[in-house]
């Protein structure tokens, strides 16, 4: 793929005064909104449907279709929640666009609000993102001053308020119904679906939840048109009528054992190998990659043989991973023990499981305990069987849990056992203790 890809979402990063509304408008900002306000709300939705934009928050759901789920002709309040809880390990793209180009996101929010006839937008922002909070607050104030928010926006008759809400410091607050519960002031315990948020969401009203990057894409789609958006990325698979394609550019976060970790924007479909070699300066210390996380740790692992997998909405799944997720790529070099990697992963999910569903609550904690013992040199082959059982019995895919956190906890275990089993067996047989510095077991 061309290295000369001209960034869209990131085009104002590092520019002077890039958070100010004047700079933004001088650069063509709020044109998308003006175009949207000149259309009927349904036409805006149709534009987004036509672009085939898919959600950037992790599930890759078709954004326009989600908006269409709202009840027709509903006269009560409709809410738009902006998911800025970004806590998937390895993921930091929301943070960068908010800090560097807040108006691009906020413009998308007003457009989405107009299209969905939302009356209020709640921006649910990860608590730890203090700088984002200040940047956004300032930008929102600027918008009110210029009537991009508030009553009768630019004389269109449409009114919208944005409430900036700081999150409750837990991974589960990013799950859309956990987010809604948290927003309502409760424990972020994800809700059972149905009803889906579009039917009954925040404060029991129809609610759309969209990721920050998704909304930034909406801004550009409205500005440049859906046809333009479809010129980027991977087209639909003609042999699969259900494939919505992987259009547009994506913010790839690269971290782990590379020479140049960071955030790059590229058309969807770049391979893991290209990303590492061409955009991250290759694996560090002249080592080789042993495993690569394709999209945040909950997506599982690609092995060294699978690095040519395209990182679009279909690629990681074909390689046995859970999906593209947040497209946060974490590179693990060949000096690193997968036992340690998996232990750390399981520890994360044990710590973050909200504790509602029995299989997730107990399964995640048990997997961490088993791996802890294996690292102490006290593992047995039976432990691998137990881990395998856990990975197959927790999650929405077998149907045993309420939300997808458990799938995210299961997948790394599943992939590690499928793709790196000899390493685990050798480690257990050797009776070695892990050399990695001891991390206190979460529980």
């Amino acid at each position, binding site marked *: 793929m061309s290295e000369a890809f001209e960034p869209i979402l990131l085009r104002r990063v590092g520019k002077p005064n890039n958070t100010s509304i004047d700079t933004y408008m001088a650069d063509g900002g709020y044109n998308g909104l003006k175009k949207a306000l000149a259309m009927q709300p349904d036409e805006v939705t149709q534009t987004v449907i036509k672009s085939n934009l898919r959600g950037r928050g992790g599930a890759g759901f078709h954004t326009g279709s989600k908006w269409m789920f709202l009840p027709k002709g509903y006269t009560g309040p409709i809410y738009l929640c902006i998911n800025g809880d970004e806590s998937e390990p390895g993921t930091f793209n929301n943070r960068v666009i908010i800090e560097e180009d807040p108006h691009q996101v906020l413009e998308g929010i007003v457009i989405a609000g107009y299209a969905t006839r939302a009356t209020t937008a709640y921006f649910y922002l990860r608590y730890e993102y203090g700088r984002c909070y200040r940047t956004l607050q300032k930008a929102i104030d600027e918008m009110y001053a210029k009537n991009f928010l508030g009553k009768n926006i630019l004389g269109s008759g449409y009114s919208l308020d944005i409430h900036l809400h700081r999150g409750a410091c837990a991974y589960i607050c990013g799950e859309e119904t956990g987010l809604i519960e948290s927003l309502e002031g409760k424990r972020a315990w994800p809700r059972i679906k149905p009803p889906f948020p579009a039917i009954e969401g925040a404060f029991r009203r129809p609610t759309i939840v969209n990721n920050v990057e998704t909304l930034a894409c909406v801004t550009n789609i409205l500005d440049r048109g859906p046809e333009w958006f479809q010129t980027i990325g991977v087209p639909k698979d003609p042999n699969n009528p259900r494939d919505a394609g992987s259009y547009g550019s994506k913010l790839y976060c690269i971290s782990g054992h590379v020479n140049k970790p960071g955030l790059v924007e590229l058309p969807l479909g770049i391979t893991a190998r290209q990303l590492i070699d061409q955009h991250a300066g290759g694996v560090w210390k002249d080592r080789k990659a042993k495993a690569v996380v394709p999209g945040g740790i909950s997506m599982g692992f690609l092995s060294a043989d699978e690095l040519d997998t395209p990182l679009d909405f279909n690629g990681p799944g074909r390689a046995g991973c859970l999906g593209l997720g947040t497209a946060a790529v974490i590179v693990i070099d060949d000096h690193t023990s997968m036992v340690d990697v998996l232990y750390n992963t399981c520890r994360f999910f044990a710590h973050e499981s909200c504790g509602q569903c*029995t299989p997730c609550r107990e399964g*995640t*904690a048990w997997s961490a305990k*088993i791996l802890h*013992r294996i690292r102490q040199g006290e593992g047995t082959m039976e432990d691998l069987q137990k881990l395998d059982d856990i990975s197959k019995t927790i999650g*929405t895919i*077998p149907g*045993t849990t309420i939300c997808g956190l458990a799938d995210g906890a299961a997948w790394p275990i599943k992939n590690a056992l499928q793709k790196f089993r000899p390493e685990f067996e050798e480690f257990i047989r050797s009776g070695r203790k892990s050399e990695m510095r001891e991390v206190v077991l979460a529980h």
Partner: protein
Amino acid sequence: MGSVRINDVEVDVDPKSNIIQAAQQAGVEIPYYCWHHDLSVVASCRMCLVEVGEKKPDGTVSMFPKLVPACQTPAKPGTVVITDSDKVKKSREQTLEYLLLNHPLDCSICDQAGECYLQDYTYKFGRAHSRLNEPKVQRLDKYHIGDQIALFTDRCVMCTRCVRFTREISGTSELHVVNRGSVEEIDVFPGHECNNKLAGNVVDLCPVGALCSKDFLYKKRVWWLKSANSVCTGCSTGCSIEVDQNEDKIFRLRPRENPQAQGSFMCDEGRFGWKYVNSEDRLLAPRKGKLGTATPSPATEEKPKSDLDFSDPWPNILNDVNQAIAEAARHDAHKFVAIFSPFMTCEEAYLLASHLKSINSHIRLVLGPVPVVGADDCYPKGPKGESPAPDKVKFTIRAEKCPNRLGVSAILKHFQGEVIEWSTVQSELAAKHLQSALFVGGYPQPVLSNADVQNLSELRLLIVQDILRSKLTDNANFVLASASFAEREGTVVNHAGLAQRCHAAVRPPAEARADGRILMELAGRRGLFHADSLLQEIGAVIPAFAALKEATMGELGVKALS
């Protein structure tokens, strides 16, 4: 109604029911923890997972690939449910293994053992061995969680039924979840312990031995308990209950589900309010003659019979009572009142009323004092403790603290043409217009003022049928030692006209007797007291009770009065 297939059984179910209920109707058990029909659905324990599919119009069945929580899935017509496949069995086994991972398995000292869903389901659906090789999570027990309840934190399966109860039924929201993941626990805020008036229900709701009643704790293994269906006499709500006893000792009361009466719960006043049954002050034998002294000593009240004295004190005394009544009525029947307690059953009131009227129709039948405390107490409470709107009420503790005012009144009305209130008699007593009285008590707490007691004591004839010794019984010419609610059989009618049957759970102490039996003998009726036959008689005689004639009251009662 729509047809649903559970394994191989086709059942017609209400489409509003879920798959657990549909399966119950088909005689198939689906295990569950978090679901309760009176609480919101959270579908989090995942014990109830089953395979579900749909019958297509062409007759074929297409099954969903995933397991589905039965509690959350409506039993729509055409639904096909499989509960006995390997997939379902494996899932149950795995869920139980997860639940038991950190469970202390201290069944041998756990109050719940014997009625524990973790035990029962593990026995039926679980695997025999735990594969946990790591230390279990340990959590501190919380005896302070409520005045009446203790939390054995380790045993909790996090079904959150208790939390939802305090949020949705009592509205007091004391219980909540703290921490996250496998170290989360149920807790209260300091100073906000779970002491609402419905708190005891969380013990019943808890499917395991995590929440225990301090009152019952370590008193009895549950498999020694036998239950009798009864009705709480604490207030005119008349909650259906079970009285759990062993060897004629009551150990606890529990609510018995009855949608027509109170629903699934009961209040703590009722639940723990039975202790007077075992009071030291219980009257243990009938007696003739006043005790005389102002402060009688127990020794003078009952001469303990020798172990070899098997004579029955009742026939002579009842004979004398009848003579005394006849005598008094002959003297001046207008100055004879019989005071009926609202704690009496309908059968008892009928027996006494018909007997007295047959002796002399001028004897006046009076409704005794009706204890009323405060106002009706409705739940769920709002955030500031305010009462719910009338259409949102889920439970009411009534101000009228007796079980059968309506029933007794209806009987009095039949025999008397009107219900004479206690206050009328009170003033007549004060004006010294009366000469004789028969007073039926049975109140758990004293209801008469000192002046009332004094005035009654001064009558020429005072017959008292009661359960607890008092100044009134000391000053009575005859004392008939009777039975508490747990010791007798009969029918009571609650505030809404629902007639329910109480069954005797234990025997009355010593020579005390169930009121029905006393009155049968007093009335000279043949045979034993039999509530059903009497009810048919009452139904035939008193139109208001016609609905009871068929005596198909069952255990849930019938609407008798309106």
